[in-house]
């Protein structure tokens, strides 16, 4: 009976796996390999010189490292990579500072209220990312109410002192506006995994800590925070990784000071019309992202093992 049935299952099975598999190989892996190939080729006069040429049945490989050498020697690229990592890091820290207490208090409110609060955090997900970034343009530009508020409270002097803006009063197109925009758009990515983690915590552990003489403050730092470590890692990576390669926010809210690597790739391709160079920059960016990604995956796998 089972031997009779098996072929049917087998057909359905191979189609269900095969179609998305083939799709991913074609539209995710193949483009990626093409980028890798482009990164070791050079621009000819108009078109890209092919790495591989077939002449008289002989395959010739002409791998050029000039793009990578150029990236290594030109300070602009190093600067852009460093900027990207720095702004992504600052954004992640800010999201954590705002998001952790937020998720914590959300997980401790009345159970009946929590689905509504969760829905309210999710809702910005559904509204356009582009429009959320654009909204800050109106707030921080000259005459915007947040800009006026910051200037009236003289907080702009503090920001200038911190080096987030160049001169007091000028808030747009500065590292400040960039970081605010990215924090705003990525905050839900921090809150959601933290909330998922904190709402599952066993509250009896806190009772036990208090029975053993810990003050709420001590219990928070020595019980709650270590237990939510997986959530902290997940949220931080979900904010950090996309921020490194961000393009829209630096373009709309950043300034000449805040060159990020996403913009470099875009400009190499569109303005300089140099896909090989853009590809080389992209390959290095992928290598930069692989490390935090590996950390993220390890923690996800560990968290899954613990639940199952």
């Amino acid at each position, binding site marked *: 009976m089972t031997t009779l049935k098996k072929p049917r299952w087998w057909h359905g099975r191979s189609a269900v796996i095969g179609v998305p598999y083939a799709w991913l190989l074609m539209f995710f892996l193949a483009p990626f390999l093409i980028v890798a190939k482009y990164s070791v080729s050079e621009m000819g006069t108009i078109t890209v010189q092919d790495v591989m040429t077939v002449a008289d049945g002989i395959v010739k490989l002409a791998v050029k490292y000039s793009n990578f050498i150029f990236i290594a020697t030109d300070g602009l690229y190093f600067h852009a990579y460093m900027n990207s990592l720095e702004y992504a890091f600052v954004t992640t820290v800010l999201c954590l500072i705002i998001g952790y207490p937020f998720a914590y208090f*959300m997980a401790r409110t009345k159970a009946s209220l929590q689905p509504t609060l969760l829905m309210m955090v999710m809702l910005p997900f*559904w509204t356009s990312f582009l429009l959320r970034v654009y909204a800050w343009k109106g707030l921080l530009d000259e005459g915007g109410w947040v800009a006026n508020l910051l200037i009236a409270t003289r907080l702009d002097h503090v920001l200038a002192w911190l080096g987030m803006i160049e001169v007091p009063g000028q808030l747009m197109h500065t590292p400040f506006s960039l970081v605010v925009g990215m924090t705003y758009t990525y905050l839900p990515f921090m809150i959601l995994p933290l909330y998922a983690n904190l709402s599952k915590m066993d509250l009896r552990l806190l009772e036990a800590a208090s029975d053993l003489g810990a003050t709420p403050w001590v219990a928070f730092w020595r019980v709650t925070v270590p237990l939510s470590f997986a959530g902290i890692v997940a949220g931080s990576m979900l904010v950090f990784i996309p921020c490194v390669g961000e393009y829209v926010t630096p373009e709309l809210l950043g300034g000449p000071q805040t060159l990020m690597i996403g913009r470099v790739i875009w400009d190499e391709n569109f303005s300089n019309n140099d896909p090989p160079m853009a590809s080389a920059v992209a390959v290095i960016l992928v290598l930069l992202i692989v490390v935090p990604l590996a950390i993220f995956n390890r923690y996800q796998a560990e968290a899954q093992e613990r639940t199952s």
Partner: protein
Amino acid sequence: MSRGKALFSATFAKGFGRAWLVGGFLFLYLPMITLVVYSFNKSRLPSTWGGFSLDWYAKLINDTEIINGLILSFKIALMSATGSVVLGTMAAFSLVKYRRFRGRTFFSGMVSAPLVMPEVIQGLSMLLMLVAVQRAVGFPPRGLLTIWLGHLMIGMSYACVVVQSRLQNLNPQLEEAAMDLGARPWQVFSLVTLPMISQALVSAWLLTFSLSLDDVVVTAFLSGPGATPMPLVIFSRARLGLDPSVNAVATVIIVAVAICVGLASIWVVRSERRRAAEISAAQRADSA
């Protein structure tokens, strides 16, 4: 003494918690509210309130660039949401139901990679591949079709995540029971599995629809002359500075999305409730 202190800190913590939540929600919502409010501003500048007006909406109707962009974007979003849900469901089904097949780890890595890969890289890589294909066979031209392929690639991953988490929580005994009663695999899927994951399919569809409607970077890499979808129109105007017409479009989009999400979540809650009622009715009948 110590009891009084503890009480004080408890009420303080409660107040502090509430204030933090309120502050967080203000941070999340005030910028959007401001955006909507200024779409009704008669004045061009955000610094001055020139009185309430619908001028920008009136201008929107005659703005062919925006109207055409909106139509094109809706077409692409419809196509990519539908395609993403089909492909994403297949991928999720493979990952959840088939625990073992050759290259499974590699497959699951590829499915989730687009979620974290910077969009600039995805757009660039897709563009370079399509250019290579175009040079070889003269097809496809850059435009609706190429944008659709790009959105499909990202949307599939999101759809897969949503459907996967639902499939993992399903009770496998229901499908096994159907098989024991003689249903063919396709019948098991369409009569048992599909109704149970329908809510996840709806939310995956809505999510990929709104992602497609919103995407700037991949769209910019893959669009061609004459095909300028909505996000590119908004982006190019926003780049030049503040533009009340952008606020007006934004308001229209936000309201439309809010209505869709609201209706869908009402539907999800209702069908959830109905199913719970049916299950408890069945259990009662069983025990009687």
